[in-house]
């Protein structure tokens, strides 16, 4: 039975929630120092464990959940929209556009405006995807192949601009900026969460609302339209939803790769292609995946840390390749 009945949806969500919850419980324990759940109650004024848990681990795990959910759901939405398995926030230029403008904003007076950097990042992300849209658009909609090619080119362009900008950054700041550009959740505690979580939430609500039409768009723009979908509106919502959340996340955590690309693919292997189901399950799976990878980033080279992007790529990459092969056989 592959129809999306109310029951099937509910059970899938329960399973997804269980995975995300398990990850959320496990992740805060992992790091250079193990922190068992017994040390969790209390506040940041208590033992060393309690201090670490409340000021460092907890906000970081929450950030990982929110950012992972946003990146994975956006990736699922963009792959569905473009019907291209390579579509992601990277290959459509959103990440590099957001990173470039957020970097500029971070080095100017905007840095002191609360919430200013994520908004700048969103402007950058929307500019990049807007550029891709304008360049790849033709009669009958976007050509999926051309769109990703255009996106990668725009992405490389913004990456180059970022490196130029990086050269102008004061050397004292450069280390910090480079670290941010490699992507990671080791940012400033609750403040980072406050800056991007609202935008991530807005983005996921928009994408969820668009998922029913995205499901129809799998059959192409003409068929979707003849079945009652307002195609232009659905595409605009998807584009907005995917770019807003991704750009806000990138502004705060830097670009974190592989989550937006691999998590949706793994999820669709389980759920099938239906976007109404694949989008919310991607969000839950992405949340758990990034929180766990971040735990691994804290653990493997303790007391130092690895950038979480390294973990998502080294764990996620081979796993995904194995899944792809296993499915083909």
């Amino acid at each position, binding site marked *: 039975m592959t129809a*999306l009945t109310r029951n099937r949806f509910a059970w899938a969500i329960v399973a997804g929630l269980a995975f995300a919850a398990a990850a959320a419980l496990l992740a805060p324990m992992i790091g250079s120092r193990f922190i068992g759940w017994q040390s969790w109650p209390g506040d940041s004024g208590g033992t060393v464990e309690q201090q670490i848990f409340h000021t460092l681990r907890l906000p970081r795990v929450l950030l990982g959940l929110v950012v992972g959910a946003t990146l994975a759901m956006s990736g699922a939405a963009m792959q569905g929209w473009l019907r291209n398995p390579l579509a992601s926030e990277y290959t459509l230029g959103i990440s590099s556009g957001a990173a470039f403008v957020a970097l500029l904003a971070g080095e100017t007076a905007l840095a002191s405006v609360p919430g200013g950097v994520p908004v700048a990042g969103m402007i950058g992300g929307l500019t990049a995807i807007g550029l891709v849209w304008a360049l790849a658009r033709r009669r009958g909609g976007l050509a999926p192949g051309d769109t990703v090619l255009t996106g990668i080119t725009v992405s490389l362009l913004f990456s180059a601009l970022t490196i130029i900008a990086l050269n102008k950054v004061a050397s004292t700041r450069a280390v910090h900026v480079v670290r941010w550009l490699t992507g990671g959740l080791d940012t400033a505690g609750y403040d980072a969460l406050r800056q991007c979580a609202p935008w991530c939430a807005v983005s996921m609500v928009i994408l969820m609302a668009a998922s029913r039409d995205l499901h129809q768009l799998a059959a192409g723009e003409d068929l979707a339209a003849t*079945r009652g979908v307002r195609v232009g509106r659905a595409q605009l919502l998807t584009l907005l939803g995917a770019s807003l959340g991704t750009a806000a996340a990138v502004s705060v955590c830097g670009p974190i790769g592989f989550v937006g690309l691999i998590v949706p693919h793994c999820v669709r292997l389980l759920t099938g292609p239906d976007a109404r189901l694949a989008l919310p399950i991607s969000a839950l799976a992405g949340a758990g995946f990034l929180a766990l990878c971040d735990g691994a980033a804290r653990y493997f080279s303790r007391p130092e840390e690895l950038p979480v992007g390294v973990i998502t790529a080294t764990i996620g990459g081979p796993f995904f390749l194995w899944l792809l092969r296993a499915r083909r056989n």
Partner: protein
Amino acid sequence: MILEAHNITAGYGSDPVLRDVSIGIEPGTFTAVIGPNGSGKTTLLRVLLGLLVPSSGEVCLEGKPLAGASRLEVARAAALVAQDAPPLWDFTSLEAVLLGRHPRRASAWFDGEEDIAAARKALASVGATDLESRRVATLSGGQQQRVAIAAALAQEPRALLLDEPTANLDLAAQVSMYSLVRELCRSRGIAALAVTHDVTLAAMFSDRVAVLVKGRIVRIGTPAEALTAEAMTEAFGTPIVVTTHPVGGSPVVLPSPGVGR
């Protein structure tokens, strides 16, 4: 008339693809629109479905202007079987057919019991019940086309518009495709319109044939009326003879070898 185009001029740039085209389709009849490549056949389908707004003229859906109808209203009246739609490889046949329930679903979000029942009924009416849980990627071309028609039927339309329904099908699948469409017209009173360049096959199964050349309908009538040697030679720009099918007597349209220009 379920769908009716009045004096349509339409296109994508300044140069119109369709010029002053009028055509209507009636319940229970199967109309074929034939013509050479680039004559505007697919554009005509897009205009009739409201996917392309004509620069002049009007399309009416059951007597009312199509321009005033919502996408959902059009979707409940007319369904498309597309030619170049992206393949739904990872969908099961049932899932692919359920896509057609979009304008009819009671729940905004989920597939209800009645949707699943309707999708199964649609699969049954194209003789594809046993394909229900097969992935589309594993189906033959003819089976995929049946599933596409079932998806259109799941919309419960009164008009069925088909774009080159027999392209890429083998002979047996072509014949069974057209007899299926004719059967759906007869048994359900559906108004069907297929655009095709397979003239002989269209003549065998359709009630009416319209010949579209360079954006104009140059002839319309029963297959025997519309498909004369003279009209075909002019339409396709190559010498053509028309003979009679030994079974059934429909016109058989044949290019003449060796006398081409």
